[in-house]
């Protein structure tokens, strides 16, 4: 315990190469936010292209240079933008930015530990992530452009530099960056699992863990089990690209040249990729659900409804997430029998998801709701989780997937259920734990403005996409003007773009609020939200080692809000049970 906090700290050891989990959390958050802003601005660019395809836009030339000569965006640049937007959002923002930030910040604080099991491995995890981010950003500036084969980088498109400019050096950098990223994820994940299993304070049994901890714990296990498979997929792809192997390549003639590769199958890559890719969706959404469970309970001043069912559904979702991956592949020519199996397992996920949604709604019922910005974003998450989850019932059904596969219906579905939900969870987490990170409060009114502009523009962006999809519009089209059948859809596209730009602009309110509050925000009190979990028993000063004296013991679950017979409407976990008091 005493190895922390007592040595002299200079700028570098405090802010850069810190092993303090709270500092590492902030590093993850700031890097994640940077990547998020870049990815969001990319989406603004390609949405502007889709609203007025073919019309020269001087801004494109200003920002993209030779990739938009005369203001007309190059189709390859369009594909590069959607590819990097997806990669950054899924991995760098919603995996590292979300899990990395809040697992690091909250795990030691909520389980009563002075730091992570290994502070060094934790710092290493961040620095791998940082290098991986830098490499990904460098790939944006190279002459042949960044990876552009879609964020799923299916070979042979991604394997053959002849296939598109982005499959050259850009793809190599993508692969290197992602390998480092996975390393970061694994180091972080192992640390989270070990810390939660071994370093819980006295009295904190698994059944008294806050739901945030359960969510981060299961998320870390998912990551540790599935990310290595992505590395194998990536390694085989590197072999195919650079060493002449044929894992994914067979019988190909490209640019008039017959390749000698024989016997490989791109479908192998798809299986490997989605074996990570699907659990990844839950790696993204589970932490957000954990965060909102905590926030909704605290701000409803009510216990989370059905704690055990919530834990059970997290575990259920996580288990099922490993046996549904091929629902991304119904129409790849995979055996129809496999299609049946994966339809069955996929639709089962709706059950634990429904349980979670109902439990959230019931937690609000008869509550005394305190609408902090964090609470609003959490309610927003419940709404988007339901809306997006429901359309999953359509997409998970192999027979229906035939006609909506890879259309805008899919884009609408996953942006709402995992994009918006996870971002809402992340924003809720920032608003809620900002006082724990910086000792100050974020501005409430700006938070309200941010929430309302965000939820309106977010639904305005992604809800209409379902109609585009049902009209048969494929995703990843540089322009919808090549087919007369899509001419009527241009109005919808313009509405979508308008909302996307509005939503992006609204995020600057958040950024302003965030950075302004770090330096000038109102000073926080120790427990501003009157919350039960252990992090609010630490001093506002955020010292290395977390608690100045002894680490508190735990006597109850974290959801004793408005418990009859108590003096206040909350009883922190470290308050012993009164005589005759029952544990919920």
């Amino acid at each position: 315990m005493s190895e922390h906090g007592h040595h002299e700290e200079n700028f570098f050891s405090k802010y850069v190469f810190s092993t303090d989990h709270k500092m590492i959390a902030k590093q993850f958050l700031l890097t994640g936010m940077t990547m998020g802003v870049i990815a969001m601005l990319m989406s603004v660019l390609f949405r502007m292209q889709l609203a007025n395809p073919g019309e020269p836009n001087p801004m494109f030339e200003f920002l993209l240079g030779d990739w938009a000569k005369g203001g007309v965006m190059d189709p390859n640049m369009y594909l590069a933008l959607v590819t990097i937007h997806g990669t950054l959002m899924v991995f760098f923002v919603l995996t590292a930015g979300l899990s990395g930030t809040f697992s690091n910040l909250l795990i030691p604080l909520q389980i009563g530990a002075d730091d992570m099991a290994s502070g060094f491995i934790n710092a290493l995890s961040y620095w791998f992530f940082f290098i991986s981010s830098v490499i990904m950003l460098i790939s944006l500036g190279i002459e042949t452009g960044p990876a552009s084969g879609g964020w799923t980088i299916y070979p042979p498109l991604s394997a053959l530099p002849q296939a598109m400019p982005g499959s050259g050096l850009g793809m190599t950098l993508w692969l290197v960056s992602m390998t480092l990223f996975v390393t970061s994820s694994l180091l972080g994940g192992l640390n989270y699992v070990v810390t939660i299993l071994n370093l819980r304070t006295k009295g904190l049994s698994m059944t008294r863990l806050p739901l945030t901890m359960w969510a981060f714990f299961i998320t870390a296990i998912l990551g540790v089990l599935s990310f290595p498979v992505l590395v194998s997929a990536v390694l085989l792809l590197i072999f195919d690209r650079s060493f002449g192997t044929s894992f994914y390549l067979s019988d190909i003639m490209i640019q008039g040249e017959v390749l000698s590769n024989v016997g490989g199958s791109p479908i192998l890559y798809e299986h490997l990729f989605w074996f990570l890719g699907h659990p990844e969706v839950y790696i993204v959404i589970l932490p957000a659900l954990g965060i909102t469970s905590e926030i909704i309970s605290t701000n409803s001043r009510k216990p989370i409804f059905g704690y055990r069912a919530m834990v059970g559904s997290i575990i259920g979702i996580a288990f099922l997430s490993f046996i549904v991956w091929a629902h991304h592949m119904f129409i790849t020519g995979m055996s129809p029998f496999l299609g049946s199996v994966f339809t069955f397992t996929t639709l089962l996920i709706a059950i634990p998801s429904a349980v979670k949604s109902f439990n959230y709604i019931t937690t609000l019922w008869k509550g005394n709701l305190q609408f902090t910005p964090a609470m609003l974003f959490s309610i927003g998450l419940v709404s988007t989780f339901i809306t997006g989850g429901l359309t999953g019932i359509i997409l998970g059904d192999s027979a229906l997937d035939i006609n909506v596969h890879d259309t805008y219906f899919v884009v609408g579905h996953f942006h709402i259920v995992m994009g918006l939900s996870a971002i809402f969870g992340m924003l809720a987490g920032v608003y809620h734990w900002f006082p724990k990170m910086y000792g100050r409060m974020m501005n409430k009114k700006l938070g309200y403005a941010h929430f309302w502009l965000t939820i309106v523009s977010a639904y305005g962006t992604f809800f209409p996409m379902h109609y585009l999809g049902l009209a048969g519009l494929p995703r990843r089209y540089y322009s919808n003007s090549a087919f007369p059948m899509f001419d009527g859809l241009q109005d919808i596209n313009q509405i979508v773009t308008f909302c996307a730009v509005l939503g992006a602009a609204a995020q600057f309110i958040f950024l302003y609020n965030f950075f302004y509050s770090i330096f000038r925000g109102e000073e926080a009190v120790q427990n501003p939200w009157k919350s039960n979990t252990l992090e609010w028993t630490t001093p506002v000063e955020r010292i290395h080692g977390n608690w100045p004296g002894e680490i508190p013991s735990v006597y109850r679950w974290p959801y004793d809000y408005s418990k009859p017979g108590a003096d206040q409407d909350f009883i922190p976990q470290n308050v012993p049970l009164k005589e005759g008091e029952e544990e919920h």
Partner: protein
Amino acid sequence: MTELLIIVAIVVAIIAIGQVVRIFELANKIKGIKESDITDKDNDTQGKLLLTFGVLFIASFFLMTAKWNHLLLPVSASEHGVDIDFLMSISMGLIIVVFLITQPILFYFSYKYRGRKDRTASFISHNDKLEVVWTAVPAVVLTVLIIYGLQTWSNIMDRSDIGDAVVVEVYGQQFNWTVRYAGEDNNLGASNVRFIGGLNLVGVVSESSYTQQTADLDKNIAKTKLQISEELNANKRVKKEARLAKMEAKKNTLTSLVSTTPKDLLIAAEDDIIVKELHLPVDKSIQLKFRSQDVIHSAYLPHFRVQMNCVPGMNTDFVFKPTLTTEEMRVETGNEDFEYVLLCNKICGGAHYNMQLKVIVESEEDYNKWLAEQTVMSALNN
């Protein structure tokens, strides 16, 4: 320039908002109110806003559906597509009902239970009965959906009547499609990328194609040999020798491919027809076979509810029966210019968005007439 001004305007607007908020903050400070505290007034305002949002959200859902319904895909032009559409309406109906129940409840509860200082929340931690109900109800509903969905799926994927299906191959390459008809024997010959050349766009392995390709090769080989014997520059000579070796290797590959291909497949190839349009006879089972030359493509025929990936090195297929001719669909949609389309729906490179194939569904007579006008493989190579 305008863009720059817009950006400047946005920045100024944000700073302005920030300053206004700062004034509020200072005012609060003077009054001794903590800005971050959630007051009853905040809860009241936000609760009402949530309710308003909920109402507008549901209203705009109905509005969008009413306004954009006519833009959605028209009736299915294939037999199995009708089943898909029916399953779709059932599933869609179901999720819309759940949507219309849960969203209003969520926003209504948010409004109804908005916080007040003088109220306390009820301590309700769980309710086993309720939880069993909302686990069991979705489970039952989903069981029905799964069973119905799987039935539809297995009907679509059913291959038992494949015998009399018209076999047509769709071949994808960056960035266009080629179609191969099986000819009178309804049997496609073998194919290999190494046979692609000239008019043999999909690499059909046939004796006539072999004869033609090797004749060309032989001519070139002889020419190169002659050039080599006359070449005085050593460097150029080496280069030409390398070219010669390559051509000879190609000839060997072609020879071994032809000699290892079963005789009946070679014969089956001779009446294959390669074209750039997809004509389909109405009311006949069609087995579309898919291959790709370079990267993964996906052949998407939205009006027939047909989609299947074209994977290099692999054969995929989809069996369906078109039920409406192009003419009938024009009447159905009230659009005189209506055309069926086949589009690429798997990212495949720069011109992915414009990789189209003309699709025409016509009566069997018209189809046969059209097919008879096309050149068969053996004639192509003469």
